[in-house]
């Protein structure tokens, strides 16, 4: 390994990315519950308060609307707040501030007031948690004009994407797959030039079917593609990375080649990202499709008790089942 590379986890990548952003711009502030001395419940902000001080890494009262609402005021004063929502299920008290204020102030002010706010949300399940700690609320924010929504899936993207989101002058909902925080390591080379933030990426090439995933499901999708290869099916996997705006060009190009598409996410299938992707693919690739676009996601139930969460979450077998079904048409 050369001097410019190191092996990092997603948690480390995000931590390093936040640190870099704070070094590069002293207007960047972090705020959230337990982000200071504790370093956040997932330790993403570990050590940052010690190095940047309590004025820049702010432990907030336990009130999510207050966190996002005060971030709006800080942004109006010229700061670039990065707020941490401790768990996905805790974002709803801030829903009004996000949807009615953060998303609309730039529009309402005819571009006179910028909202460079990043709202970090650890999302998704699979960690054996109690209620409200395993949700996937991305579609609710992707549905809201004025917000941009991205999801990282791996340590290297975590490092780059958080910096790019902070540099963005629009508000960004930044989704972090919490079960990946400490799961795998990847090699980061800080000297490379990253891809732009709002782009999707082919992470495994294939010719028979296009499998779309983001966040925690990218890993599952790659495993499914590997397993399918053993059965002679060549699956192309795309990590969407950006959910709003969607970067459809690589998706459409892929589906036109493969003729088949499956979308997978942990979120409920009904009116989820998969529904939007299926509609767009159908509109744009109708004559290339050999089968309908299929969706594999969480069921349309509340997130269940954790002892049965593996039945709720789409796994390798359910993704492969959908792949098989694509050939039944």
């Amino acid at each position: 390994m050369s001097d410019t590379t190191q092996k990092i986890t997603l948690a480390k990548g995000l931590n390093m990315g936040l640190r870099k952003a704070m070094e590069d711009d002293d207007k960047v502030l972090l705020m959230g519950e337990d982000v200071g001395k504790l370093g956040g419940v997932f330790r993403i902000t570990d050590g940052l308060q010690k190095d940047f001080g309590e004025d820049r890494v702010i432990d907030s009262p336990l009130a999510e609307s207050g966190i996002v609402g005060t971030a709006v005021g800080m942004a109006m004063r010229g700061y670039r707040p990065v707020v941490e929502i401790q768990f996905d299920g805790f974002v709803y008290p801030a829903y009004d501030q996000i949807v009615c204020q953060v998303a609309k102030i730039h529009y309402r002010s005819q571009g006179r007031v910028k909202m460079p706010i990043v709202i970090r949300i650890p999302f998704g399940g699979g960690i054996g948690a109690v209620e409200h700690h395993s949700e996937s609320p991305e579609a609710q924010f992707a549905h809201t004009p004025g917000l941009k929504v991205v999801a990282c899936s791996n340590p290297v993207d975590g490092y780059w994407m958080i910096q790019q989101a902070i540099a963005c002058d629009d508000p960004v909902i930044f989704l972090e797959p919490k079960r990946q925080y400490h799961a795998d390591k990847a090699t980061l080379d800080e000297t490379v030039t990253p891809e732009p933030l709002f782009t999707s990426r082919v992470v495994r090439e294939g010719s028979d079917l296009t499998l779309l995933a983001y966040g925690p499901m990218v890993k599952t999708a790659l495993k499914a593609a590997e397993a399918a290869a053993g059965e002679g099916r060549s699956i192309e996997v795309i990590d969407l990375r950006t959910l709003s705006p969607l970067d459809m060009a690589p998706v459409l190009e892929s589906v036109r080649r493969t003729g088949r598409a499956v979308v997978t996410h942990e979120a409920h299938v009904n009116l989820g990202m998969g529904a939007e992707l299926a509609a767009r693919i159908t509109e744009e690739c109708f004559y290339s499709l050999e089968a309908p676009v299929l969706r594999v996601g969480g069921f349309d139930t509340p997130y269940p008790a954790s002892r049965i969460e593996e039945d709720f979450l789409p796994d390798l077998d359910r993704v492969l089942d959908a792949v098989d079904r694509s050939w039944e048409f």
Partner: protein
Amino acid sequence: MTQQPMGETPGFGPDLAEVFGPSQQDGGPELVQLLTPEGERVHHPEFDHDFTAEELRGFYRDMVLTRRIDTEATALQRHGELGIWAQLLGQEAAQIGAGRALRPQDFVFPTYREHGVAWCRGVDPLRLLGLFRGVDQGGWDPNANNFGLYTIVIGAQTLHATGYAMGVQRDGDVGTGDPDRDTAVVAHFGDGASSQGDVNEAFIFAASYNAPVVFFCQNNQWAISEPIERQSRIPLYQRALGFGFPGVRVDGNDVLATYAVTQAALQRARDGQGPTLVEAYTYRMGAHTTTDDPTRYRLSGDVESWKLKDPIARVEVYLRRNGLVDEQFLSDIQAEAAELGHTLREGCKAMPDPQPLSMFDHVYEEQTPELQAQRDGYAAYLETFEGAR
């Protein structure tokens, strides 16, 4: 269901009704007043203030012109030129007092009724009408006059004010002793909004960080049809104590007292002494908005009794009695008000509708390709019509 008496319960402290008094009592003994409804100048041990004749005449002019903006806008709504208007009738003193106490560097976060504060900040009144006419959603630059856009979801702006004040702290613009630098922030809200979680969260954040923000509550006693008793068992200003900062109730129909109290609260904030809650005790003389019908829920007798406390009349009595104005001055202001009304009327009617495609502008600072495609698609669609623009 009517409110039950509080009463005393052994082990749970005193009868709170005796400690605080009811929320709706007529001002109460804690009410700060410097000019009585009869126009008599009275003094207050903590909040006294010497006003020059020039300042008093200025307050009078501000209030007359603000009322004219309000009546003109109401008339424009009746004529179909505005979709709706949120009237401030009766609240002129609270707004002018609060507005004139500001320094240029201070920043104001209004609700949708702060037309008088906007006037003090130098926002063109015509720009206020755009929102209510439906041609924009806030037609002024918040940073040009340090006056935020109107906020419709009640209470949301109190958090914005608190966050802005936290930014002021980080800029070091508090407690330097430099009167041109030290900065305060004002969050306007009403008695109805005081029930919102956001307002209470703003109190907590501001107290926790000792943020330089003044929470200015115009208690006009009505949240559309709901009286203040539905929002609070105790006078609103008393709530501040539970959050850990001072609260003051001022006669919101007394421009002198409102100025003096707000000015003192702003100075506390600028000096780094933290937040204050100012409850300006006033009365909404008109409807909630032009779509409301107060005859369905309140007695005309209540309104009549508040007419005797009119914020403008008492200043006029004081000015006349003390020989601080002459008829020429008063008629000049009436002429100025008439001219302002005319300007607003003509300006409002001349406001063009926005171009349909402008709805796609400014959704994002960096336009997204998919929204651009949607815009282009709609533009092409519009072109298919005969006589397309």
